[in-house]
């Protein structure tokens, strides 16, 4: 039913666009992605076979509401389902102190890469730590963001402060986990941009995120069985940078990286003994990071390599012991790719290979897992300028 409704909305929007010559129409663009892959994961049903993903689609609609505000929507079709990926309004000018306010559902500015849509990344796989600490689709949340310009002369400095619902936090699957309820999370980023010369630019950012990621009832066993519900908080601090060198219009070298330090409360159940009753809350620290380099040449080709590190065993179910709550095990990844842009950036063919390496603190041996993917991506709609 919901799908039908969305389908009708989409049809109306697209017909409206075709038949109207008015320039007041919003910009509409359609991104299609089609992946085919083969993996070399022992025991996997698709081992060594050519697997086809269901094509994915993203429909972007955006435009000015009036001279002061814009609105944007991004409707996605993934795994045979429509979804509202983003839907937000943006007051861009006219507010005191030149604040910009963004409200709705959108990609949160923790780090730099998260706010860029995956179809615009030079590589195929979302950084592992994004998936572990933010969720499979990245940090995408419902809330309000306030953006301030910090007067730093010729250097552009921007401070973002936001309050969010915590919509992309995946509930823990432990039996004593309790829904986090209504508990806002706070996210901020301070970013500074330098033009080093006419051809070289650098942006550096510091991010933070704080809030309750889950609650837990910490009475495990005991005589009294009293409820002991505790809110468990996380504090992420992040450092990001992006460096771009484009000596000609035909070649660009991009080096980009991000790191995240995670400090959070985790319940740890003590070994049964005399001290039999309560689980305790401990603080743990772990981390995640990625760095990649991509070189685009002759406007039509690019290749690059990315290194990934994340706490936890990538692909595990989220519990109080796994993924972001795991300070013992880790996963590393290496991804390499080659891309061909036949005509400008309206279409891309990209071949990528990713190798995942698992590290278990208890010495468990697990083979590396390799996936080779071929991606076709097209983008239909107005050609937009590239933000840094």
């Amino acid at each position, binding site marked *: 039913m919901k799908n039908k409704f969305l389908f009708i909305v989409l049809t109306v929007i697209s017909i409206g666009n075709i038949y109207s*010559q008015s320039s007041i129409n919003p910009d509409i663009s359609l991104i299609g992605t089609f992946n085919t892959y083969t993996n070399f994961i022992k025991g996997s049903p698709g081992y060594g076979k050519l697997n086809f993903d269901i094509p994915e689609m993203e429909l972007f609609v955006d435009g000015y509401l009036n001279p002061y505000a*814009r609105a944007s929507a991004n409707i996605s079709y993934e795994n045979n389902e429509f979804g509202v990926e983003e839907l937000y309004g943006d007051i*861009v*000018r*006219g507010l005191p102190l*030149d604040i*910009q306010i963004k409200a709705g559902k959108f990609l949160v500015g923790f780090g730099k890469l998260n706010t860029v849509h995956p179809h615009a990344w030079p590589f195929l796989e979302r950084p592992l730590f994004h998936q572990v600490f933010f969720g499979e689709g990245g940090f995408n949340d419902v809330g309000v963001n306030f953006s301030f*310009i910090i007067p730093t002369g*010729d*250097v*552009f400095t*921007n401070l973002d402060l936001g309050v969010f619902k915590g919509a992309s936090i995946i509930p823990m699957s432990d039996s004593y986990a309790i829904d986090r309820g209504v508990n806002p999370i706070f996210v901020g980023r301070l970013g500074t*941009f*330098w*033009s080093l010369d*006419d051809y070289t*630019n650098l*942006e550096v950012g510091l991010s933070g995120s704080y809030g309750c990621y889950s609650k837990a009832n910490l009475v495990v066993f005991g005589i009294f069985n009293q409820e002991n519900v505790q809110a468990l908080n996380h504090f992420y601090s992040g450092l990001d940078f992006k460096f771009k060198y*484009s000596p000609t*219009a*035909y070649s660009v070298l991009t080096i980009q990286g991000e790191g995240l330090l995670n400090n959070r409360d985790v319940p740890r159940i003590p070994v049964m003994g005399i001290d039999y009753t309560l689980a305790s809350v401990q603080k743990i620290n772990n981390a995640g990071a990625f760095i990649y380099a991509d070189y685009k040449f*002759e*406007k*039509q080709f690019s290749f690059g390599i990315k290194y990934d590190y994340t706490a936890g065993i990538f692909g595990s179910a989220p519990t109080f012991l796994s993924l972001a709550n795991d300070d013992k095990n880790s996963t590393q990844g290496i991804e390499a790719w080659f891309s061909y842009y036949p*005509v*400008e950036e*309206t279409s891309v063919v990209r071949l990528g290979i990713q190798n995942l390496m698992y590290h278990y603190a208890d010495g468990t041996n697990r083979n590396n897992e390799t996936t080779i993917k071929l991606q076709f991506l097209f983008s*239909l709609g*107005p*050609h*937009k*300028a*590239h*933000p*840094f």
Partner: protein
Amino acid sequence: MKKIFFALLLISASLSFANIKVVASTTVIYDLVKEIGKDKVSVDFIARGDQDPHFVEVLPSYMVKLRNADIFFRIGMGLEMWSNQLIDGSRNSHLKTIDLATDIDKKEVPNFKPDASYGDVHPFGNPHYWLDPQNAKIMAKEIYEALSAESNQDEAYFKKNLDDFNYRIDKKINEWTNKMSSLKGKSFIFFHASWIYFADRFGIKTAGFVEPKPGIAPSPSHNAELVGIIKSKGIKTILMENFYSDSAPNQLSQLTGIKVVKVPTAVFGMKNINSYIEMMDNIINQIIQNS
């Protein structure tokens, strides 16, 4: 009390020296603003002279430039498709954005809604009008009007500078027209569809473009087509902006012996090209020498 008096004195002194802060989207506009505004404006530009003005990355450093500006002059007609993002990013609610295309006799404006199969970058007509020096005069007049509106008391000063510019460029236009008269009716291959205003002004003809469609990279099949045109029409010269890759034109040159002439189409587009007049001089002299 004395301190306050001095403070006021300082403020009023700085006010009387206050000049109009202008950002130009291209270096050609930058030069024309300097001609008209002289020392009563401070002016900066965004697209470098050696850069394709269609494709400029949206850099925060450009937002900083616009943040402090009073007026932003653009070519318009969709040339600077990157500019709205910069304007929004600047958060400058007092910024006046002025398209200099307003009074230009626009060419190649489609009378239908073009889709991407017509190319990538000229949906509102051909925006390369600054390559006709008569249009530079129209741009200068537009700039004069905008600056005068911003600072009424300097109107006479700007008018004098405009008259002075018009006098010099009229002389130059005569000189260029005389030089180009020997090439009247001759056909040329151009790289990008940016030369129609220039060609119409000086009576030269367009036999084809290295780009199959505006903004679309050269292709082998299109090159093959051009080889046929060059041979059958006996065309001698490919004229191209110096920021484009010359690999496709050089292939044509190897196959047919046609000359590839690379010219600056913006101020600072080459060494020693520091004004609009120097730029036009360079273009015309190179064409004459190589045709």
